[in-house]
């Protein structure tokens, strides 16, 4: 086998770096969308349109002709009136409502409350109030990714869910990062018996079936965000501790550390000023690859019903909802799954690219 030509090596690395940059762009896009998006979709995450359940994804304005009839039937039933005539004129409806006991005007409030119509105006009253002609504007709603079982806008829900998923991913990773770096650097720098004991403890923790413990914790105590954060961070700091310790072991013998020691700098000073800054490269890579793991674990727990609880939502919760109604409405699985997978792929690609960029030998 011929050794790879340098040009090709550079080309490959360029491609990989480009994929890493694309991944970063996707990540920023998703984060921005989750941050500001829910305010721009025109729907509240909790706003349910009972007449527009499980709409497929699409650009068409709602309610369309197919949904208007059933929606009016349902509203008429609620208002205890008969629908005597329905005439559609562009964006307005002319409804003739009838009731033997007289149409109660207060019941007109049901029309705007459904979310599908604007404020109704009475144009004509017949038979001494037993019949009422009402014009009401039809609202034009857009559900780009469709709606869920309760008729909530899926795009808005995916974006607000993303806030929770990303926040948990970042927060738990940050905790794991801090604990892991502090632990690993201390063990590696102090060395000897302390190092052996500290790393033996990590080995013991590795052998524990942690996912089972997390599930136990969340089943037995009421699932809460804090508990889940703590549980996830408790699982995920081990890799970081190992990486940092390995780095520290080699850094400890370097001249600048020796020099600092000779100058009388104490162990905490050396660890924070000289060791930790020099481990940042591998730490950054490990941390980038940690975030998708945390998000995956969070959505796994939420999928099992042990993680984020209603009314809050996360991608795992939405995927679980989607998986339950996959036959009737496959878009309910597809939409949150795409958000989740895109985020995870982007994070993994970015982490890989970062690792390659920091290690010119591999690539």
């Amino acid at each position, binding site marked *: 086998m011929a050794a790879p030509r340098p040009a090709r*090596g550079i080309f490959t690395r360029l491609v990989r770096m480009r994929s890493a940059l694309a991944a970063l762009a996707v990540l920023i896009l998703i984060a921005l969308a989750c941050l500001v998006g829910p305010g721009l979709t025109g729907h509240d995450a909790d706003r349910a349109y009972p007449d527009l359940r499980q709409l497929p994804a699409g650009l068409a304005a709602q309610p369309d002709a197919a949904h208007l009839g059933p929606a009016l039937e349902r509203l008429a039933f609620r208002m205890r009136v008969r629908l005597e005539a329905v005439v559609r004129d562009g964006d307005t409806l002319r409804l003739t409502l009838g009731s033997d006991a007289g149409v109660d005007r207060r019941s007109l409030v049901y029309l705007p409350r459904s979310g599908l119509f604007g404020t109704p105006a009475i144009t004509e009253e017949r038979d001494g109030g037993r019949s009422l002609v009402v014009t009401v504007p039809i609202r034009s709603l857009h559900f780009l990714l469709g709606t869920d079982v309760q008729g909530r806008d899926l795009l808005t829900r995916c974006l607000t869910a993303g806030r929770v998923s990303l926040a948990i991913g970042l927060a738990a990773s940050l905790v794991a990062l801090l604990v892991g770096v502090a632990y690993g650097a201390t063990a590696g720098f102090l060395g000897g018996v302390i190092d052996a004991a500290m790393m033996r403890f990590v080995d013991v923790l*590795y*052998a524990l*079936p942690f996912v089972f*413990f997390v*599930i136990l914790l969340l089943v*037995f105590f009421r699932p809460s965000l804090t508990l889940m954060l703590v549980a996830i961070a408790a699982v995920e700091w081990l890799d970081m501790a190992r990486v940092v310790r390995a780095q520290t072991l080699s850094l400890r013998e370097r001249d600048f550390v020796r020099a600092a020691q000779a100058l009388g700098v104490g162990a905490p000073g050396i660890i924070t000023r000289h060791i930790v800054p020099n481990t940042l490269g591998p730490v950054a890579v490990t941390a980038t690859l940690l975030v998708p793991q945390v998000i995956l674990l969070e959505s796994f727990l939420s*999928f099992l019903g042990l993680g984020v609880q209603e009314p809050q939502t996360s991608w795992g919760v939405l995927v679980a909802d989607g998986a339950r109604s996959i036959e009737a409405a496959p878009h309910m699985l597809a939409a949150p799954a795409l958000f989740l997978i895109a985020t*995870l792929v982007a994070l993994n690609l970015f982490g890989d690219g970062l690792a390659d960029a920091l290690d010119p030998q591999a690539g």
Partner: protein
Amino acid sequence: MIRFIVRRIAQSIPTLLAVITVSFFLMRLAPGGPFDLERPLAPAAMENLRRVYGLDRPLIVQFGSYLASLAHGDLGPSFSFRDMRVLDLIARGLPVSATLGGLALLLAAGLGVGLGVAAALQRGGAIDRLLGIGAALTVSLPSFVVAPLLQIAFGLSLRWLPLSGWGDGAPSHLVLPVVTLALPQVGALARLTRASLGEVLRTQPVRTMRSLGLPPMRVTRHALRGALLPVVAYLGPLAASLLTGSVVVETIFGLPGIGRYFVEGALNRDYTLVMGTVLLVAGLVIALNLLADLACAWLDPRLRVAT
């Protein structure tokens, strides 16, 4: 070598004890009990039940008697499955989980290592470039997304394979769960193999072998021996997690494996069943890690001296 094994087994005893202690007291501290039904039992009946199962004694006494029966190899009676011992339940669930996990491990290791080697030998080749994106993709595909998609595609639309269920281990029932379990690991293993073999191929001994004119296949074989070390070390914990069953895969496909028993046990406050499954998983993790270490020592003579 034997001394090494004995020492490792002795070292694992504190770990197992920690697992037992933590899970035992964690469960007892939690609110709720195994006999909390939707319609509360009469206090007298509850009292009787608690006495029969020994739950009325002080916690520490219960813990002692659990340890004592454990020493006899008895995991106790199940609280939620009437008239069943935990051992019987595990004997029922383990073959299911082990079959799935074993097949998934074979599939993942075969495909993953194969692809990784191909990518490392042809740096920048088609497989290598495909792996860059493909590995990140398979690693990022959550099993709870893959499983319903596979069910829709092969179970509902094409009707090639059954949707769910165990079917007494019929091969057609195994395909979808095994693929779901193996898929994320194929990418991880391929990436690991590629990185590790790529590193070994750049070392001095390999260059020397090449310059001496050894056929490429023989060089690769020699290099592979060293390159497989991190892969084998990774396979240990991976095997443990696959063999003890993925909770999600067993739930989605409705398979009566260990993971299902664990979740049901936890939801029903079935103390002994949960303890039994956790203990089994911990034991398997330790045993398979030991196995992986032994395999590493066999692959790399330097590690034998250190042990």
